């Protein structure tokens, strides 16, 4: 177990190092400069330009700047937003809660909805199963921006049940504001998890060891819980993990559509404003979240399936 964690830890650090270099390097190569954004297109005098370059260390060689940024980032200092003259860490801190809550709520919907529907479809053949397949097909074909518009129209405008825009204040109100965005974000993934659950449960139901459990006179509910769902949990966890990891990036679309003040929406806005430090900072946070989620999935996988030996896994 310890060896596994150490190795995965080392891999995590290596991944982050490569990712951080890519993030920093890509923005360095991107057209436009932070100075241009700051001066609003006017050409500053050479003195001012030199002064600005010196203040933001823009004249240093690339590798030196990368190194300074990286060592500061490790301590939690992601630099300064040049246009806003504010600490990037503070800017991210103000918004990370919204995105984290959105992803958490969406994950909950995906797990409960996807596993529930999948189980229902697998266990109840006939019209119920057909219904599940139909719903999941429609849901799978619905990209989150389209789902956002439909949900806003239906529940926000027509029925007036839920707020359509904004973040809200206080726990209950914030949660209410997150329901529609989370549903929009979950649409495609719920369908995926439903399909995988349905297939995995069907497959498991046909296994001999399930027949053994039935032959021993165990109640059906306990056969399903302890043998069918327990074993099907292995592929389900894998797909849930990958889906949740992808939500972190997809949240940008939904946050923009619902006017949520989260990291994803802010990333888009910062990129448009050429606020390089913010883009780098948010990208780095998203990469960390993605990699850590994947690590958790691997851990869960090894815990769920004893045949996967933790110490000797090659990947």
């Amino acid at each position, binding site marked *: 177990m310890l060896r596994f964690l150490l190795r995965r830890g080392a891999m995590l650090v290596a991944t982050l190092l490569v990712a951080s270099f890519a993030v920093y390097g890509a923005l360095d190569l991107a057209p436009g400069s932070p100075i241009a954004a700051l001066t609003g297109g006017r050409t500053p005098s050479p003195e001012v330009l030199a002064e600005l370059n010196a203040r933001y260390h823009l004249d240093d060689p690339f590798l030196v700047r990368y190194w300074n940024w990286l060592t500061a980032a490790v301590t939690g200092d992601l630099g300064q937003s040049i246009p806003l003259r504010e600490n990037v860490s503070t800017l991210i801190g103000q918004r990370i809660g919204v995105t984290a809550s959105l992803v958490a709520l969406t994950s909950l919907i995906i797990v409960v909805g996807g596993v529930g529907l999948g189980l229902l479809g697998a266990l109840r053949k006939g019209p119920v199963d057909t219904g599940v397949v139909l719903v999941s097909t429609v849901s799978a074909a619905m990209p989150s921006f389209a789902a956002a518009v439909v949900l806003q129209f239906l529940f926000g405008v027509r029925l007036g049940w839920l707020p359509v825009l904004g973040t809200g204040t206080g726990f209950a109100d914030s949660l209410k504001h997150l329901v529609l965005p989370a549903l929009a974000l979950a649409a495609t993934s719920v369908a995926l998890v439903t399909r995988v659950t349905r297939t995995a449960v069907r497959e498991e139901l046909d*296994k*001999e*060891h399930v*027949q053994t459990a039935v032959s*021993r006179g165990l109640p059906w509910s*306990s056969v399903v819980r302890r043998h069918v769902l327990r074993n099907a949990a292995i592929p389900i966890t894998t797909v849930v993990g990958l889906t949740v990891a992808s939500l972190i990036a997809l949240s940008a679309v939904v946050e923009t559509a619902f006017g949520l003040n989260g990291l994803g929406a802010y990333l888009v806005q910062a990129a448009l404003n050429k606020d390089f430090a913010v883009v780098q900072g948010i990208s780095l946070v998203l990469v960390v979240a993605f990699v850590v989620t994947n690590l958790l999935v691997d851990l869960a996988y090894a815990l769920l*399936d004893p045949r996967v030996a933790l110490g000797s896994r090659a990947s």
Partner: protein
Amino acid sequence: MSALLEVRDLTVRLRVGGSDREVITGTTLEIAEGEAMGLVGESGSGKSMTAKAIARLLPAGAGVEGSVHFAGTDVLALSGADLRRHRAKVAVVFQDPRAHINPVRRIEDFMTESLRTLEDVPRAQARTRAADALEEVGIDDPARRLRQFPHELSGGMLQRVMIATALLSRPLLLLADECTTALDVTTQAEVMAILDDLRRDRGLSMLFITHDLELAGAVCDRTSVMYAGQVVETSAADRLHADPLHPYSAALVQARPDVTSTAERLVAIPGRPVSAFEAPSGCRFAPRCPHALDSCRSTEQVLTGLDAGRVRCERAATLRGRLLDPTESPTESEETADA
């Protein structure tokens, strides 16, 4: 002897594709308390389906006719909690323990699940009973084995776990479905000896399904032979070898290699085994039977008592004692003798 299990005219049809296929036709057998009955036949003859029907493990949509009575209850009419109680009293030892034991649960979980779920035995007590049961089937260091996962145990060891588990819930009948086929020969003998010992100690009834006539003879009191979904003969197990009543049983006895002499060539039954749904009308074995007459092919054969056994062959009385005789070649002379 009162019969613990009574199967009468059991016919099972399975849905394959769009059509119903008969897999067992009119199977009749009974097992007394403490008796071991062997059920012998080739693959596809309906042995396992018979066991599944008794334990009510047939796939959904299977059509079942006839009757199965177990310990005074009509098994085919059971449902819900009564059905589960019936299943708990009939323990099944399956052929492939690796596939039949949940790979992600510990041996302890597998062994104690019935006790804890159905009988509310406390965890510690269930564990002690499981450890004792493991010791009984000759597994040392049971405490360690209980903590292990199935993939950490050998096939022979797993089958012993399966047997120990089957006996833990104190069943009335053991259905052993080719329980040693997947094991290598030496392990097979060990597992078989353990199963036989424990069964006799407990006075447990058993339906022992195998395609090994010899093995059935060694552990069973009586043996039933199945062909194409029908029981063709039921006899005392030791008598079946010396004095088979049905030409098919005789052919099976002759087809097994003799251990005392080197045979030039093994005797084989001509033709190939058929399943119930593709069986011809009349006697199902007739196309492969050296003794078949025209009347065999045209009349449905019925299971009738002969001596202490039962046989499904109208010529059984005539052929009695001649089936194993190598000098007896079934030719026209025989037909004239009969006519």
